[in-house]
């Protein structure tokens, strides 16, 4: 395993003062006139450098829309999203790997896009595949890999963009529990060592508590921030530990109130 040049001791404030992601009063409306749909309503949220924030909400809370705005794939109707000079990369629930490329070539693609020289690309692909423990699978095509392996390739590909900010849209939602637990450990390790700032969207409350420094709760239609839960117990946490389950129940109750509100 290659060692990261950055020492472990440095904390968040070294990576840059203030915030990694600053979302201020962001609203997003789709369509116009009578059929206009307010997807996000004056959302304000900040993620500190090196912080792991989990975003949770019921269907229709605009989680994915919010990530698209932060990734710069779409523009907010009002408000601002500021990621400074940080490089942002986005990971989806489906791996979205290019089926015609091998795992290694997929990881290499962002570097080709940004014009990294060939020799350097090769070294870094090897390093990244090693990081997600897929060194011996570089020449496999996506359809030859399992769902969990594909998500690891996708993670390596996201990291290949040299991103400091990682946006993850239910990345482990389609995986079985055992694989997901292991990938939590892999992701946590990489987050620690690379000092990433992560905004992680999930609908699985315990997953949010397992991973996040903070869990942010969104309401549905329109999406609003309706609660924040700091997770202050020690890592590594278990999905099934009493602390995790305890906080998850609290968050779920709040989430249920929100869903019930829509039933009336």
């Amino acid at each position, binding site marked *: 395993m290659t060692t990261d040049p950055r020492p472990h001791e440095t904390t968040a404030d070294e990576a840059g003062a203030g915030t990694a992601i600053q979302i201020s009063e962001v609203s997003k409306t789709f369509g116009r006139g009578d059929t206009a749909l307010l997807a996000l309503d004056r959302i304000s949220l900040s993620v500190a450098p090196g912080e792991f924030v989990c975003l949770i909400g019921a269907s229709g809370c605009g989680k994915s829309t919010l990530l698209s705005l932060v990734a710069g794939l779409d523009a907010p109707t009002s408000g601002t999203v500021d990621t400074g000079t940080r490089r942002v990369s986005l990971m989806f629930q489906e791996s979205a790997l*290019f089926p015609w490329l091998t795992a290694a070539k997929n990881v290499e*693609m962002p570097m080709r896009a*940004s014009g990294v020289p060939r020799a350097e690309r090769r070294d870094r692909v090897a390093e990244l595949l090693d990081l997600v423990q897929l060194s011996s699978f570089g020449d496999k095509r996506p359809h030859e890999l399992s769902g969990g392996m594909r998500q690891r390739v996708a993670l390596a590909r996201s990291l290949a963009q040299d991103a400091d900010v990682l946006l993850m849209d239910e990345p482990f939602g389609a995986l079985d529990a055992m694989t997901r637990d292991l990938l939590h450990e892999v992701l946590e390790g990489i987050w620690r060592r690379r000092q990433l700032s992560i905004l992680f969207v999930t609908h699985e409350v315990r997953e949010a508590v397992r991973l996040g420094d903070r869990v942010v709760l969104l309401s549905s239609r329109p999406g609003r921030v309706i609660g924040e839960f700091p997770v202050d117990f020690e890592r590594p946490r278990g999905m099934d530990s009493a602390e995790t389950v305890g906080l998850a129940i609290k968050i779920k109750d709040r989430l249920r109130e929100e869903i019930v509100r829509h039933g009336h």
Partner: protein
Amino acid sequence: MAIETPQEPAAALAGLDQLELATPQQAKRHLAAKAWAAAWPKLLALVLALVVWQLIYLSGFKSAIMPGPATTLTDLWHQVHTAQLWTAIGTTLRRAVIGFALALVIGTVVGALVSRIRPLRAAVGSLITALQTLPSIVWVPFAIILFGANTSAILFVIVMTAAPAIANGLIAGADFLPPLLLRAGKTMGLRRISLYRHVIMPATLPAYVSGLKQGWVFGWHGLIAAEIVVIILGQPSLGVLLSNDQDQADMAGAIAIIIVILAIGIVVDLLFTLINGRIRRRWGVADAASA
């Protein structure tokens, strides 16, 4: 702290990976065995056709003009030993290659433009599909009036029949482009030309190759139809030979030429099937179909 050593989940992950990938390997068959497996149904079909033909011959149906397989194949055998047949095959194939190459360029350019430019799509998209429904023979009078009875007219017919199919293949591929792959490409900083080259083009390739295959079939139809009508002195082609046989009421000769045309069509079709299969395997589509 356990989390500082990423090796910790490594063993479990490696175990899981091995379990997930442990699908039994299919025994690799010998090349000759594979070729035989692919060939025998076709050979059987051929034998069946010959048997049916022979039976019709024996039944005495239109016996005055209808030759049996033996007569026809002997005629074919004689023709194979004449320079004329080979010159004709050469002429026809040269036209096919040039015409198809032109159609390839035109169809690809038009398809790429139409699939990328929305107003153009609205204006021309359905027209291209409409062109495809036109029987190839309708272009022959048009081409002869436009160019005269010469090679250009024949090439024109090939282009008009093959290019729409090729353009349509490209457009269909662009239509079914998974939006997620586009999003993924954009997130990693691919824009315009690089997005086209690294995402749109490869994602469209399977549909494009299907379009090429269909374009070839249409172009081949158009070519032979045009050759039967456009007779250029001193330039024997398969169409001309067929036309001569018609004039001389030489049924055995006509069937022999049909067999030659059929054989060429099958060989080219096989070529496209081969390319198609290779792409599908690479894209991981073939596995799902055969599993």
